[in-house]
């Protein structure tokens, strides 16, 4: 095998891929290496320019009709072949649920290490990647490094800010690969009402928890979010136990890091806190003075969200007019 060098990024999510390029750029600079993006799909070449403008030196393209829709089985085959052929030193994969499955399976095929959900990536004195991530349900930050290569890490959205696009030159490499028929067949896809699709990108996040008794009672939260130009989301029990939503903010869900987070009727289970701890300013409203969310809040309001939230909407309307 030739010497392993280069930093590669891949995500099936276009936006996340641009963010990975920003993270990858920093590592590539330290390692004095090339930064490449992997573009897999059907008729995807038109996306290459944008990736180059956002920092990629090289684009590996696999254009194949079976890659028209993302599926881990087929995308993994294409990615594995490319990695084996070109031997990158470091590979960053977007931390979606499918992305994490893909990265884990790729690591298994290459007998490599993989660190999921990294919130910080640096390079140590020996040139090895060093990762930080949250473990123990939000109770600890673990720093880890790699023993072998390639070094695979998955990175959640909003970890890196996209670079400003600039006119630059890059190389486009089209590759032919063999792709086996997928072992898993998708028979149906149900999009479910998604209240928080963009919670990861929200500047203001208004979150509801178990203190909200009925789904209709989200209305004041929505009003508050709308007034501030923010997004509404919720905790895991509201999605998974009460089935009101599909997504949630938390360790196993989405990470939000807005300028302002307002938690309404949220007790502050460590799993939820793991998804919002990077918010700049945290407001917590809860009836229970002992609620753990208050430990991680800048502004503590002990009170009934059913009274406080509508009052806050009115107060903000008034104050913002001044």
């Amino acid at each position, binding site marked *: 095998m030739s010497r392993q060098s280069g930093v590669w990024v891949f995500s099936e999510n276009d936006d996340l891929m641009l963010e990975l390029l920003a993270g990858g750029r920093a590592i590539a600079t330290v390692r004095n290496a090339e930064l490449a993006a992997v573009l897999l799909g059907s008729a995807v070449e038109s996306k290459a320019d944008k990736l180059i403008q956002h920092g990629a030196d090289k684009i590996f393209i696999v254009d194949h009709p079976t890659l028209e829709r993302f599926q881990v089985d087929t995308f993994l085959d294409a990615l594995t072949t490319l990695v084996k052929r070109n031997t990158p030193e470091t590979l960053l994969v977007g931390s*979606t649920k*499918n992305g*994490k*499955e893909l990265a*884990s399976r790729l*690591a*298994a095929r290459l*007998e490599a*290490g*993989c*660190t*999921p959900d990294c919130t910080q990536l640096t390079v140590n004195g020996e040139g090895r990647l060093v990762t930080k991530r*949250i*473990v*123990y*349900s939000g*109770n*600890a*930050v*673990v*720093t*880890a*490094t*790699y*023993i*072998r290569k390639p070094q695979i890490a998955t990175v959640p959205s909003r970890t890196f800010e996209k670079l400003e696009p600039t006119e630059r030159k890059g190389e486009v490499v089209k590759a032919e690969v063999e792709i086996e028929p997928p*072992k*898993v*067949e*998708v*028979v*149906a*896809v*149900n999009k*479910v009402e998604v209240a928080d699709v963009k919670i990861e990108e929200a500047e*203001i996040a208004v979150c509801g928890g178990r203190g909200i008794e009925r789904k209709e009672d989200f209305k004041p939260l929505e009003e508050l979010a709308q007034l501030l130009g923010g997004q509404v989301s919720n905790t895991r029990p509201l999605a*998974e136990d009460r089935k009101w939503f*599909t*997504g949630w903010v938390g*360790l*196993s869900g*989405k990470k939000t890091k807005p300028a*302002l987070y307002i938690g309404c009727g949220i007790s502050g289970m460590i799993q939820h806190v793991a998804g919002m*701890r990077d918010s*700049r*300013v*945290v407001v917590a409203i809860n009836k229970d003075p002992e609620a753990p969310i208050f430990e*991680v*809040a*800048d*502004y*503590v*309001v*002990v009170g009934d969200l059913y009274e406080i939230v509508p*009052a*806050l909407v*009115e107060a*903000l309307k008034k*104050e*913002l007019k001044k």
Partner: protein
Amino acid sequence: MLRILVCLKQAIDVSQLKADPSTGRLVTAGVPRKISDFDKNALEEAVRLKEKLGGEVVTLTASAEDAKTSIREALAMGADKGYFIYDEALLGSDTLAVSTALAGAIRKIGDFDLILCGEASIDGFSAQIGPRLAELLNIPIVTYARKVSVEGETVTVERALEDRYETVKCKTPAVVTVTKEINDPRIPSLMAIMKASKKEIVNWKLADIYVAPEKVREAGWGVKIVDVLAPKVERKRIVIEGENPAEIAEKLAKALIQEGVVGR
């Protein structure tokens, strides 16, 4: 007759962790251990499938620490037999090393229709063991299952993704990782606990499953841990009080404007 194997991790009970105040390092010694939450869901699902379709459920655990109490609990929940790779060489092993050990054990135990795992462990939360096992055993994998059914040699799974549910099918044998929402794990009855004490736990060392110790010691890892620290939380924790909701709301609104986070 379904043969189901469930991978059980004995995890740290994360709700009982404490940091050393002088170093900020997390102390894991002496913290209680338990079956990782999602693995319990996997076990419950396996037992339900067995109750419906007939068959056998075995559990598999690999650890450098004694996990027999956890395995005994799994037997009380309805597993028929527990396999335990108890070897100090596993101390500090990463997912690459642990999956190698688990795959070695599975090859020795025999053929299975289904291998069930939790979507991730409650302590490390890496979500890698299921996917890695599927690759090592060269069988299909479906992750994040919220519903599982088996008919003949076909497994049908509803996957919970970020913005959609996906219904997928594959052939057995397959690995399926399950979410917490798939079921509510049972609490075993006293009778079940007593019966479990008669069930077998098979104890193995790595040598028994033909896995060389260097595969699971540091040279065989992909990743090693440098440090584990308590996260820093620096919050103001300003309590906003008032006579009535309107007064509280007004104070809060003014504070947020002053912070520069609203009305920009």
